[in-house]
């Protein structure tokens, strides 16, 4: 007698190519946006040597937009991915398991795609909540998985192109060959998946798209919650700096004409204002009003050559991103400040009192807080 479990039989409806195509299109779009914006974020944070000096410091809102899209599209993929996998689930048990070499290779590539996509979305999501249950470093694994997903998605689309074409619209030949009575159920399923994408987006996207901040119920940050009316990532306590005494503070500038400036001397230099967003790699962002000394003025004071790179060193004792570097595009941008004031008030310790870096189009983790030293590199 033939076993009912191996291979299992699926009597449910909608495990068909039209449903898979409809959901797959949106999932493909979400993955494409997520991959490209992720690539931008990776290059800005870990620039390859050949690009190092040429990363653009404009537009000022660039990273805010791309990283907001990165996290929003990744979160939108969370309902889409299980819906897509549910649609094609019976194929996991297709029998015989391997029909030809081609079939074996295709199944292998689908296995890679499914495993990599699930882990990629999961790791990205958990990083936004700062929960790290895995034993490997997040950034290199998330980045490598992205290439794994991108490669296997491209292959998947190439292999499935005839089926996708046959089921692209409601009037495509493949769609018309499917049972007509499934139509209303399919529309209900797609409506529910759309509603789920809407639900996760609406409760979250206000963390960067501030007009929707009133609906920010489940996102890790609310744009208005934080010291100086701005969220933070890593408080002074977590960074091990506490309150830095203003009379003991010195900013050291290391260069051809090295110098050390007290806080009062910094306040005595020409002050500039800039409206710049703080945009976190975790997806939240908000624009703020900064006042401080231009980095380019300090570089001129230290006699830095025009194309010099600059290293910014924090006084923090704990945590990653204690040191950041920037090319001349950023260092010489007139909007790049060592800020002393935020939204009309002195910086709070959590925002980097007494002095922090703020530059346009730059990931938040590189906007070094509690700056103690600027080093002019060759």
């Amino acid at each position, binding site marked *: 007698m033939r076993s009912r479990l191996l291979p299992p039989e699926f009597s449910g409806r909608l495990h068909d190519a039209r449903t898979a195509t409809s959901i797959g299109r949106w999932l493909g779009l979400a993955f494409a946006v997520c991959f490209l914006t992720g690539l931008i974020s990776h290059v800005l944070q870990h620039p390859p040597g050949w690009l190092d000096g040429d990363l653009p410091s404009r537009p000022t809102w660039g990273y805010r937009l791309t990283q907001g899209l990165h996290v929003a599209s990744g979160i939108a993929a969370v309902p889409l991915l299980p819906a897509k996998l549910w649609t094609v*689930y019976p194929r996991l048990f297709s029998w015989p398991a391997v029909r030809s070499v081609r079939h074996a290779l295709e199944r292998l590539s689908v296995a890679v795609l499914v495993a990599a996509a*699930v882990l990629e979305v999961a790791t990205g*999501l958990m990083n936004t909540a700062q929960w790290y249950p895995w*034993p490997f470093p997040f950034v290199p694994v998330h980045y490598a998985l992205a*290439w794994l997903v991108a490669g296997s998605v491209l292959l998947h689309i190439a292999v499935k192109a005839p089926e996708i074409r046959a089921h692209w619209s409601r009037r495509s030949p493949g769609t018309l060959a499917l049972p007509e009575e499934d139509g209303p159920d399919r529309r209900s399923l797609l409506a529910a998946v759309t509603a789920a994408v809407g639900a*996760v987006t609406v409760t979250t996207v206000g963390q960067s798209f501030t007009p929707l901040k009133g609906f920010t119920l*489940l996102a890790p940050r609310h744009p208005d919650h934080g010291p100086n009316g701005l969220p933070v990532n890593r408080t002074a306590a977590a960074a091990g700096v506490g309150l830095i005494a203003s009379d003991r503070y010195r900013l050291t500038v290391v260069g051809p004409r090295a110098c050390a400036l007290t806080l009062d001397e910094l306040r005595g230099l020409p002050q500039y204002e800039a409206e710049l967003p703080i945009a976190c790699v975790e997806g939240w962002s908000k624009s703020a009003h900064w006042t401080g000394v231009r980095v380019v003025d300090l570089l001129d004071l230290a006699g830095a050559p025009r194309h010099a790179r600059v290293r910014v060193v924090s006084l923090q004792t704990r945590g990653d991103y204690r040191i950041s570097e920037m090319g001349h595009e950023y260092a010489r941008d007139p909007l790049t400040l060592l800020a002393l004031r935020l939204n009309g008030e002195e910086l709070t310790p959590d925002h980097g009192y007494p002095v922090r870096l703020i530059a346009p189009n730059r990931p938040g983790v590189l906007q070094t807080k509690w700056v103690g030293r600027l080093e002019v590199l060759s």
Partner: protein
Amino acid sequence: MSRFLRWYGANPLHLLVLVCSFAITGYACARLFAQRPVEVVIWLVGAAIVHDLILMPLYSLADLSARSVLRHRAQDMPTPAWINHLRVPAFLSGVLLLVWFPLIFRLSGPYQGATGLTDAVYIGRWLAITAVLFGLSALILAFKLGRIRRQARDDEERPPASAGKSA
């Protein structure tokens, strides 16, 4: 060519694209396994197993049992298609939980130190959203039921003229 087709199952272009993709995959894997390869493999395979062999069968089973249990309770009254009134709020609430369970269950160790905020608010918010979703769904179903009952009563009170003729 025909021997190749028979042996491989598709034309050579298919094989070329496939080999190209596996080369990219290999490149990605070289990066992927540069650190802690065993742990990465465990998590990669684990992700597929957790989804395909645990989560997916679990929610299918939940759907099947909900339908078989509630079918018997609902026999004595005229009902519209009701299963989606259960599925939709459960799906939406479940997806929100899937996305934010590390915050809702306060699993993130560094969260408070990093943000200066508390993550104690999330479980209440998620429960409130869940209540609103199920409540709205119940209201809509109640409205539909009311309409069906009214229609049934109206039909009884004045039987259509055609019914008399055919009887």
